[in-house]
């Protein structure tokens, strides 16, 4: 297979956008369900939901019946709390904001977005930045609907890391390494968030974004291996598989179980 040209790549991106729009609609429906459940709960008085603290309670109770619903309440994740959900969403938005800013900066560099850039790497950076914008909008959209304040600032902890790293960047490999670090923190954070938030809809949202950040990480790991190996010319779509080093086949997915030790605490990026 010959590597595709720029036009072919753009066509692929358009097809990808169509697919993404479908996925976005699904994610938005999930968020709407979540928000509706929270608002319903807040409006009800005298419900079996003590203190109105359990978003999604009404629907869960409806399908489990009283006995089952009691069991659900008794064993609901200990951290379930709408305020905590908002914090998690705000922290997620802060990570997305930082990712967007970082890719935006990277695209101003000649070896990522300029004349010296590999076309596939440039297109990937542009598309990935757009996906992070969507993630940020989704997280902040949910925050706003829940009455919280949108997080429009980048994550302070990792913004400092980026600020410290940018002056040391010498080439595409350095940028990719920084991007891997940010994608990894985001993916690990959302993976952990899945068990920390209080409704199925919100769990699904965080899982669905975690998977995408992990995909960014996988591709970046493969790209970095080729750059570090002095073979950036093999970063093509499709790659010339026959020329790839053997070990490149597994370098993009190092763990059988995605780690979470680098996950940001729920409150790390919350609006004060």
């Amino acid at each position: 297979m010959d590597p595709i040209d720029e036009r072919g790549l753009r066509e692929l991106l358009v097809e990808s956008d169509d697919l993404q729009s479908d996925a976005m609609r699904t994610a938005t429906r999930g968020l709407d369900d979540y928000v509706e459940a929270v608002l319903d709960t807040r409006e009800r008085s005298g419900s079996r939901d003590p203190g109105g603290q359990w978003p999604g309670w009404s629907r869960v109770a409806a399908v489990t019946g009283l006995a089952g619903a009691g069991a659900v309440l008794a064993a609901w994740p200990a951290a379930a709390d709408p305020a905590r959900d908002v914090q998690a969403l705000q922290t997620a938005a802060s990570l997305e904001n930082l990712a967007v800013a970082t890719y935006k900066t990277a695209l101003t560099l000649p070896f990522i977005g300029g004349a010296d850039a590999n076309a596939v790497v440039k297109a990937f950076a542009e598309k990935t930045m757009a996906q992070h914008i969507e993630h940020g909008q989704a997280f902040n959209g949910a925050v706003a609907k829940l009455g919280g304040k949108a997080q429009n600032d980048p994550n302070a902890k990792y913004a400092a890391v980026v600020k410290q790293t940018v002056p040391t960047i010498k080439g595409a490999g350095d940028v990719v390494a920084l991007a891997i670090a940010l994608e990894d923190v985001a993916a690990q954070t959302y993976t952990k968030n899945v068990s920390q938030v209080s409704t199925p809809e919100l769990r699904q949202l965080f899982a669905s974004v975690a998977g995408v950040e992990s995909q960014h990480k996988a591709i970046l790991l493969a790209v970095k291996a080729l750059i570090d190996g002095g073979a950036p010319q093999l970063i093509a779509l499709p790659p010339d598989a026959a020329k790839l080093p053997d070990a490149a086949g597994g370098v993009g997915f190092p763990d059988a179980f995605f780690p979470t030790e680098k996950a940001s605490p729920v409150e790390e990026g919350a609006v004060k």
Partner: protein
Amino acid sequence: MSTDKRPEMQISERELTAMTRDLDELHESTFPGVRTLLDEFSANLAHITRGHPTGRRGFLLGVGGVTTLGMAAACSSNDTGSSTTAAPAAPASTTAAATYEGDLKVVALAAALENLAVTAYTGALDAAGKGTLGTVPPAIGVFVQTAMKQHQDHAAAWNAVLSKAGKPTISDAPLSITADQVKALGAAKSVPDVAKLALDLENAAAQTYTFAAANVTDTGGIMTAATIQPVEAMHAAILNFVLGQYPVPDAFIGVDKAVKPDALLPK
């Protein structure tokens, strides 16, 4: 774009293999954490299947859990068959869908889906060995072996949960989609054919775990699904790339291609 020759590589196979080894060590270091999750999940499920709901943190009877108590009692004398290598202590290896209810049905579904992926990759290696797929680039061979190993780890993890909950483990792929997948694998004549098949399976797995993360009720089970989902998504991204397709086509992983629990077949 890719006209350069292999000798221009500045990194040796040995160095890359060493990198891979480092990554393997990283993987091994993450496994104990997963084991802790699984042990807690198993303990919760074991309490439920024995008819003694526990006050232990995090277990939710949920929609199916209440039913599980009765079902476990009804099925406990019907477990027959052989154990699997993944969980030798398992009481049996039947695959009757009715044996599993609630969270356990999702666990059984996950084990079956992982086994299907292992079967597909094993079949691909077998076909490659026979020359059916033409020339297979070494990097593709490494991809298949690495992904297959991870799916084996996932299947072993889910089967360990079943085993510790006193339920039969799943050693095969009793799913409504299996026959079609096996047929498609048999018809594959090239690496791209197999890659497309694998991509469909990886996407289905990633979406199934996304669905599971939302629908499993136990915190340990939720977290286990959450830590496996990104890995399947990563496999899919690399396969997309190999096929010349945009590697991260969606901003959100959907659930429309998820394999639902009712796909688990009775024997």
